[in-house]
């Protein structure tokens, strides 16, 4: 009963409906943009929207299959051989590149694939253009997977990263579980979701704004007086408030997540769910498919959400008005948007990957490493630990603060 009415209190406020719908609209717009702005290029011109998606999908599906050393060697070789015909080669005074039919018929339909292959051969933290595939030595075959392993080793052993031996082992052990050869295919829908998860931060912020009055609203309206002077006002009511806030937050956010996932998946298709995420970036050391990576990323985001809801409830229990709650919570969401990683392993860099904005990012390829005692954690586990602890600490505190609240003029 109490839960039901606490939940009704939240959803019956006009502001709740307006803010929730605003969040839904924002999520729809954010996750529709990659579809609306999608472009495919042909010799005849640019194709946009669903037509472009369909064109690129067909092109990439032609490359679908197991990426064995032989397959990769053949494609790189084919690319290199195109340069042997001078009519295919353009020169801008510095670099040579493919032009004409060679470009339009070979490179363009395979752009995404060729970029992935080229990145595998690029030195760590540097992105080279596809033209440099010409320089890949094929005398012993492509050695694609060996190059990949070496690149990951170089990445984790880079002295600038300052990773300890146990931290390096952590990543190498994780990477050793990645199965090769990779299965290639069309995975655009999942790519879009994974590359834009941080946009869900606005959904979390709006949920927290909606929940700001859970306790503070009672103080502001004066209803704290009748609640706290009633039998269950200092006990069951508080539990019901916290549960209602969490359930509302999870439900509302889930609708944002459903919207965020369904738009790209409806537009691009669900194909690719079972493909390894390494086909977007070969240095990713996680042995995961797109679906698994998406689920893990969202589970972490849900823990971040619960942590931030819990913090909002504590601030709400402490402040006399929901406006004061927002004055504390909104900057907590917005300031991290302007903080840039400095590329080191220092405290600042590690911290900003835990703050709300970057805590919602999928950082599968970034080797962000934390250590708690003898335990090495990646960014996802560190976020789970931090925001999980945040909930465990702040929820009982919120309960205590409301219970001890003094009703004064």
């Amino acid at each position, binding site marked *: *009963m109490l839960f039901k009415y606490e939940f009704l209190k939240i959803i019956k406020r006009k502001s709740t409906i307006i803010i929730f719908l605003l969040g839904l609209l924002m999520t729809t717009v954010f996750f529709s943009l990659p579809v609306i702005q999608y472009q495919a290029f042909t010799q005849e011109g640019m194709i946009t929207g669903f037509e472009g998606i369909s064109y690129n999908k067909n092109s990439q599906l032609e490359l679908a299959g197991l990426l064995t050393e032989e397959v990769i060697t053949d494609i790189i070789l084919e690319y290199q051989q195109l340069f042997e015909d001078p009519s295919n080669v353009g020169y801008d005074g510095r670099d040579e590149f493919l032009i004409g039919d060679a470009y339009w018929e070979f490179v363009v339909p395979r752009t995404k694939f060729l970029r992935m292959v080229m990145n595998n051969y690029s030195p760590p933290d540097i992105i080279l253009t596809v033209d440099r595939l010409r320089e890949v030595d094929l005398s012993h075959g492509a050695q694609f997977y060996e190059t990949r392993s070496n690149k990951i080793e170089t990445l984790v052993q880079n002295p600038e990263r300052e990773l300890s031996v146990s931290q390096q082992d952590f990543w190498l052990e994780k990477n050793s579980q990645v199965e090769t050869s990779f299965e290639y295919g069309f995975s655009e829908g999942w790519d879009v979701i994974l590359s834009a998860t941080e946009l869900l931060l606005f959904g979390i912020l709006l949920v927290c704004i909606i929940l700001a009055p859970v306790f503070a609203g009672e103080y502001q309206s*004066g209803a704290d007086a*009748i609640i*706290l002077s009633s*039998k269950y006002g*200092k006990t069951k009511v508080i539990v019901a408030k916290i549960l209602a806030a969490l359930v509302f937050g999870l439900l509302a956010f889930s609708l944002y997540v459903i919207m965020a996932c369904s738009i790209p998946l409806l537009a691009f298709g669900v194909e690719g769910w079972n493909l390894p995420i390494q086909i977007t970036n070969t240095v990713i050391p996680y042995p995961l498919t797109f679906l698994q990576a998406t689920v893990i990323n969202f589970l972490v985001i849900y823990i971040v959400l619960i942590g931030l809801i819990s913090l909002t409830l504590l601030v709400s229990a402490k402040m006399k008005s929901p406006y004061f709650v927002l004055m504390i919570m909104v900057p907590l969401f917005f300031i991290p948007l302007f903080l840039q990683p400095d590329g080191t392993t220092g405290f600042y860099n590690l911290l900003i990957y835990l703050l709300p904005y970057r805590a919602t990012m999928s950082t599968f390829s970034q080797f962000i490493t934390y250590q708690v005692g003898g335990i090495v954690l990646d960014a996802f586990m560190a976020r789970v630990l931090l925001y999980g602890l945040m909930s465990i600490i702040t929820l009982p505190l919120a309960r205590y603060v409301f219970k001890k609240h*003094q009703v004064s003029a």
Partner: protein
Amino acid sequence: MQISIQNLSKEYSKKTAVKNTNLELTPGIYGLLGANGAGKSTLMRMLCGILKPTTGRIKFNDKDIETLGEQYYEHIGYMPQDFGFYPDFTARDFMMYMAAVKGLDKKTSKSRIEELLTMVNLQEMAGKKIKSFSGGMKQRLGIAQAELNSPSILVLDEPTAGLDPKERIRFRNLISDFSKDRIIILSTHIVSDIAYIADTILMMKQGDIILQSPIEKATEAIKGKVWEVVVDIRELDTYTKVFTVANLQHENNKVRLRLIHETPPSATAIAVESTLEDLFLYYFGEIELNGSVEDVV
């Protein structure tokens, strides 16, 4: 049943709201009278266990209310000032919520809510949102929620504020209906409310209880201090500056004044019977009444 208030004080950083108060409350209606800022609400909040005293204690049947916790709160019905929470709830939803907060089971709640909404004449508005209610309707809903758990201690803070005369009469009748075997504490700065329904008057000034008296004996404190005098209209200014004027009535070129003063204000003054309004004026003086004579009496 007894509430014992012992050496109770509440101090804020800049002022003392309640000063070393001692009271024994047994079943009956207590009218807590005082001007704004006298400490009435603070005292009531401490009585309801929602504001911690700086010093002193409150005992319910010889047990400290702080240690009683839920066992004390289930005896409390409280209606704070400016009632009108949850504007998007219907009256029935609000009552169902409050019934749950007060620990009533669902079945009991439904029948009790219908009974109370009928009693406060809101049964036809039960399905309407509180934001559409008039001030009087909100006050009636406030008393209904306070009464949900049939509390043995009913604390009503300025329950008649903002009510029109008809609603005030209805409200007084309601309180009288509820009063049997209970402690009802009713704060107001409207003297006539107390005159009609209270058994005992508690008068508060600047945090002190300055008078505790059965209602019928309350005016004894000013017996022989209320005078009626007819003066020339030209003398009116002098009289109003020197004496506390309870009433004035123009009669041609003369003015009939009702004055409160320790001694006869003139040789022609006649001692008259004192009322609660006179008592209020005696204690609070004209300063308290500036611009609010009608509010107060």
